[in-house]
């Protein structure tokens, strides 16, 4: 486990050693503020909740998180450091986990820095803090799902731009799974079971049910198993394609 910790430390340090961390955090905070107060109309609604704030998270994550995950493996391949990493006494699983956790902790930090929004709503009215806390947790889980997709895709290429675009597209499909835009592609030819399976994997659906303040274990299980499945695919991709 010390190897996972070492990789987590290094990757997290890498975000802050380059401008990536600061650019990401600033853009994330500015955009979530703009979306919440202008597009979401937080003041106009006259309700002391953070619904407008969380509603936009899936869309913010859609292009911000692939930017965070695209370098995880693609950079190692490009620089040749993957040969160094994979000849150190660590398992592929430890490396995959370490990198994923580093990116996840980083999004956690960015998410935590949105606390002024929470302070604002508590100042303005009698906010439902347990629901807000749960929504934060749901948002963090969803970010993990995006990251798991991005990390896995990053393991398939040495080109970060390709990793970004492909991750974006896959995440987009999962955000909108269950909506006509995605479902129409499958309608008519795919078996009903597959269609049901796809529509049940919508990020939006699971996230919204958490932000309503309902703890449904199916939502938690969905996100955790989604992350686990993509990380497993990530490990397999690294193991089989590390030298390409």
């Amino acid at each position, binding site marked *: 486990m010390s190897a996972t910790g070492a990789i987590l430390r290094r990757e997290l340090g890498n975000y802050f050693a380059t401008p990536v961390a600061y650019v990401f955090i600033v853009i994330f905070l500015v955009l979530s503020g703009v979306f919440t107060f202008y597009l979401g109309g937080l003041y106009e609604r006259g309700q002391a909740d953070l619904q407008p704030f969380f509603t936009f998270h899936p869309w913010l994550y859609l292009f911000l998180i692939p930017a965070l995950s695209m370098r995880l493996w693609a950079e190692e391949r490009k620089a040749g*450091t993957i040969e*160094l990493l994979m000849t150190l006494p660590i398992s592929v699983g430890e490396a995959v986990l370490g990198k994923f956790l580093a990116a996840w902790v980083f999004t956690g930090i960015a998410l935590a820095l949105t606390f002024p929004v929470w302070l604002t709503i508590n100042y303005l009215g009698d906010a439902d803090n347990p629901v807000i806390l749960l929504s934060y947790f749901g948002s963090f889980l969803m970010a993990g799902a995006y990251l798991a997709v991005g990390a896995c895709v990053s393991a398939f290429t040495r080109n970060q731009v390709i990793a970004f675009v492909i991750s974006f597209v896959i995440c987009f499909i999962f955000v909108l799974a269950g909506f006509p835009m995605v479902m129409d592609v499958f309608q008519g030819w795919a078996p009903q079971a597959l269609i049901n399976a796809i529509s049940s994997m919508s990020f939006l659906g699971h996230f919204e049910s958490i932000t309503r303040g309902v703890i449904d274990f199916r939502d938690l299980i969905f996100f955790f198993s989604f992350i686990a499945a993509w990380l497993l695919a990530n490990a397999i991709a690294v193991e089989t394609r590390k030298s390409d």
Partner: protein
Amino acid sequence: MTRAAIKTEAAIKVISLRKDFGAFTAVRDVSFEVRTGEVLGFLGPNGAGKSTTMKMITGFLIPTRGRIRVAGFDVSRQPIEVKRRIGYLPEGAPAYDDMTATAFLDFIARVRGYNRRERRERVAAAINKANLGSVVHKPIETLSKGFKRRVGLAQAILHDPPILVMDEPTDGLDPNQKHEVRELIREMARNKAILISTHILEEVDAICDRAIIIAHGTLLFDDTPQQLLAMSTVHNAVKIRFEDEVPAAAEACLRRLDEVADVIFGISAGHLTVLPDGGASIVRRVTQLVRDEGWRIEEIYVESGQLDEVFRRITTRTEPVPGDIEP
């Protein structure tokens, strides 16, 4: 396997190794051993399969066929145990460029499971050995090629591994740096098994106890560098430089000596090379003749052999097997 057998097993043992990339065979039925206390030079033209073989030994690539045992562990069955015992300098010495040398080495020490105090000691020792002193706090991306290579070297020796595998450790270094790295390798050789790949032939003569040559994925030579030199056509040849022109009778007289195969005139006037039959030692006879005939000469010396000539002869002997497609 008995205890005694484990003790005497070679540090690196490669058995009938083969690696295919699609239709291309990069390594073909290669077997060799490296023992503790030995520096083995791994020679071959670019693309011969040296790096591929090293990547399999260090567990980065999986062999198509064959077995590799390192420190008594099978690389495919217990890769982690093997990786713990190997220090590896990959080709081009890749490192995390955005980190400083200290931070990078500290990361390596962490991954290798050392606690805080051990890490400090190990990193300091590695920096000292690799002579990194002045640059440890600069990001690796700003370092010169020579320093980058030394950071890679420090990384490989950080855990004082019993086995070192280094892919072209002196590539891109200036003559002084090359000398330093060779000194370091020689110093460490006493209690380690060291495998280095190179295409610099003097290096083999300078630091290796044994050399293997590989070309087109096939092992072609496995013996001492001295033996390699002995295969040279000019091994034990006697070179003579006369004060003036070569005496008219010289060629005929020399040819008449026992065990002389040929006499070749040098490009510049007054130079002559006497080639022996099958590497026989003819220097006594030649000097005797020079004295008897009273030829006035500037210098006379015995050629030990030319590695590049042998290397060329060995590595161009086998052509790629028909049907192989370059990737």
